[in-house]
C-alpha cells in the first residue's frame, strides 16, 4: 500500500465531537452554525483549560513570588511563545496581548499615529475594511490633520490593483488592509501589495481577523509591519486580541494605556516605561483567556490542517454552486480567491426575513451590513445574508442550508 492510501482523510465526525455546542438543538432542530466569521465555536480543550486553570492554578501574574503566581505567569507567557511560532514572529516580545482586533488596531492608529503621522501625511485604507480597520484611521487622520485615502475595489470585490501605484506616495505613512474581507470573503493579494507600500516607505497593518482561521500566517514572510487578530475567531475565548508589531516600530511608539506592569519607575514628577511586550500591556491582563487561547493553538497545531482546509474549501464550493442555482439570488463578492463564506441578497426579499426564517430551521447565519457599510454602499445593498463556514461544518449541513433557504424564499415571495 502506498503511504497516501493509509493517510486518514479529514475525520469530520470525530472533529465535531471536539466542539460540544455542535451537538445542540435550536428550535427543535439540529444546530447548523454558519456564523463562523462573526465568531468561531470552542473545542472542549479550551473549556477544560479554563476550568482547570481557575480551579487549580489561578493567581495574578508577574511580580508574584508565590507558586500560583509563578505557574500562572509561566502558562500566560507560554501562549506568547506559541503565538510567536504560530504567526512566525521573529521575537516573542513582538506579540502584544490586547482585548481584541479592534483594540489592537486602535492601539496602532493612536500610537503609530502619534509617532509617525503628521499634518498633510496620508493614510491609505483599503476599500474592503471592517469598520474596526477604518474608523480608527478616520479618527487618526482627523487628529493628526492627515489625509485619508481609500483604495477602491472592483465589481468582483477585489481591490483595484491598477489604482494602487497612484495612491501610494511618499506621503503615505501607513496602509491598513485586511487579509480577508469579512463582508465578501475576498482574500487580498498581500504578497504583491505590501512590497509596493514598502517601496514608498509606508508601513502596512494587516487585519488578520478573518484570515487566521483559514490560512497559515507568516508575518515575516509577508513582511507585515503590524498584524492583528482576535482569539474568539480562532476557536479561543472572547476577550483576547493579538497585536504583532515589528520590534523597532513598537519601541519607537509612545505608550497606549498606562498603569501597573507597563512602568519601570513611577515618581510624581514623571514615570519611565517598561520594555516590550509589557510596555503595551497595562494592568492585569486577561490571564485565563490568554492561557486558554494557548490551548486553542494546541488544538489547531494538532489538527490535520491540510485536510481541514481542503474540507472547508470543498464545502464552500458546493455552497456557492447551490446558491448560484437559486433564482433571483445574487452573490455579493465574486473574487477569485475567497475565504469559505458567501454573502448574498435575494431579489425582493429582505435579508432580515431570511435570517429569521432560517433561524427557525436551526440555522445560524448573519444578516445586515457586517460592520462594513461602505462596502454595502458600493454594491448598492442595505445588507446581505452571510453564511460562513468552519472546518467543523459538513456537507449535510450545506445541503440542509440550501434546501432551507429555498423554503424560506418561497415563504417570503
Amino acid at each position, binding site marked *: 500500500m502506498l503511504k497516501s492510501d493509509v493517510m486518514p482523510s479529514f475525520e469530520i465526525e470525530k472533529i465535531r465531537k471536539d466542539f460540544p455546542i455542535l451537538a445542540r438543538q435550536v*428550535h427543535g432542530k439540529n444546530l447548523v452554525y454558519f456564523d463562523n466569521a462573526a465568531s468561531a465555536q470552542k473545542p472542549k480543550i479550551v473549556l477544560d483549560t479554563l476550568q482547570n486553570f481557575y480551579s487549580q492554578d489561578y493567581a495574578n501574574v508577574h511580580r508574584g513570588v508565590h507558586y500560583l503566581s509563578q505557574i500562572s505567569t509561566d502558562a500566560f507567557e507560554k501562549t506568547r511563545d506559541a503565538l510567536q511560532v504560530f504567526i512566525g514572529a521573529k521575537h516573542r516580545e513582538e506579540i502584544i496581548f490586547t482585548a481584541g482586533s479592534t483594540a489592537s488596531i486602535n492601539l496602532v492608529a493612536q500610537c503609530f499615529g502619534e509617532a509617525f503621522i503628521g499634518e498633510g501625511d496620508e493614510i491609505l485604507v483599503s476599500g474592503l475594511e471592517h469598520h474596526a480597520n477604518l474608523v480608527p484611521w478616520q479618527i487618526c487622520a482627523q487628529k493628526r490633520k492627515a489625509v485619508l485615502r481609500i483604495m477602491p475595489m472592483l465589481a468582483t470585490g477585489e481591490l483595484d490593483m491598477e489604482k494602487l501605484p497612484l495612491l501610494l506616495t511618499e506621503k503615505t505613512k501607513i496602509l491598513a488592509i485586511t487579509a480577508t474581507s469579512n463582508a465578501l470573503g475576498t482574500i487580498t493579494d498581500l504578497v504583491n501589495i505590501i512590497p509596493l507600500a514598502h517601496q514608498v516607505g509606508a508601513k502596512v497593518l494587516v487585519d488578520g481577523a478573518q484570515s487566521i482561521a483559514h490560512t497559515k500566517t507568516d508575518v515575516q514572510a509577508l513582511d507585515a509591519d503590524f498584524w492583528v487578530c482576535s482569539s474568539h475567531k480562532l476557536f479561543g475565548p472572547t476577550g483576547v486580541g493579538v497585536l504583532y508589531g515589528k520590534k523597532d516600530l513598537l519601541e519607537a511608539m509612545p505608550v497606549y494605556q498606562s498603569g501597573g506592569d507597563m512602568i519601570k519607575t513611577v515618581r510624581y514628577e514623571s514615570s519611565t516605561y517598561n520594555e516590550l511586550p509589557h510596555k503595551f500591556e497595562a494592568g492585569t491582563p486577561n490571564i485565563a483567556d490568554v492561557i486558554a487561547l494557548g490551548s486553542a493553538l494546541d488544538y489547531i497545531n494538532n489538527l490535520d490542517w491540510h485536510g481541514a482546509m481542503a474540507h472547508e474549501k470543498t464545502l464552500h464550493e458546493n455552497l456557492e454552486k447551490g446558491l448560484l442555482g437559486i433564482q433571483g439570488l445574487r452573490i455579493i463578492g465574486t473574487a477569485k480567491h475567497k475565504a469559505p463564506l458567501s454573502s448574498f441578497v435575494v431579489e425582493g*426579499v*429582505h435579508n*432580515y*426575513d431570511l*435570517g*429569521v*426564517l432560517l433561524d*427557525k430551521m436551526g440555522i445560524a447565519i448573519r*444578516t*445586515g451590513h457586517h460592520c462594513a457599510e461602505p462596502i454595502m454602499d458600493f454594491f448598492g445593498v*442595505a*445588507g446581505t445574508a452571510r453564511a460562513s463556514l468552519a472546518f467543523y461544518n459538513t456537507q449535510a449541513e450545506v445541503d440542509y442550508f440550501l434546501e432551507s433557504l429555498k423554503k424560506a424564499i418561497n*415563504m*417570503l415571495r
Partner: protein
Amino acid sequence: MKDIQSIQEDFVQDFSLLEDWTQRYEYIIDLGKTLPKIDDLYKTDEYRIKGCQSQVWLHHRYENNILYFSADSDAIITKGLIALVIAVFNEQSPEAIAKAEVNFIAKIGLGEHLSPTRANGLNSMIQKIKHIAANHLA
C-alpha cells in the same frame, strides 16, 4: 371598535389554530403583505424607529381623543408583526393605550421578537406608541 384586550384575545385565538411555526410565520408574512402602506412622506428619519436590522416607520394622527397609527417596515416579518401591533392599538383612546398591557405577542409564540436586544425595532415601536399615548393624556 373593540377594546384592546379583546383584540389581543382574538389574535391569541386565531394563532391557536395554527399548527406549527411555518403556519404562524406564513400568517405573519401575509399580514405584512396586507398592511396598508404608509405614505412615503413619512418614510423619513423623523418617523423612523431604532432597530438596526430592519427599519420601522411609524406615523400617528390624533383626532377627537382617538389615536390613528400607520406604520411600515422594509422587512416583511417585521411588517407583519407591526401590523399586529397596529391592529391592537389603532383607533383607541390615549387612556386605553396608556393603560393597556401588551401580552398577546408572547402568547402567540412570538415573544422572542420582543426582546429589547432584538434588532427589529418591535419593542421600540410599542414603547413609542405608549409614549405617544402618554403625551396625549389629559
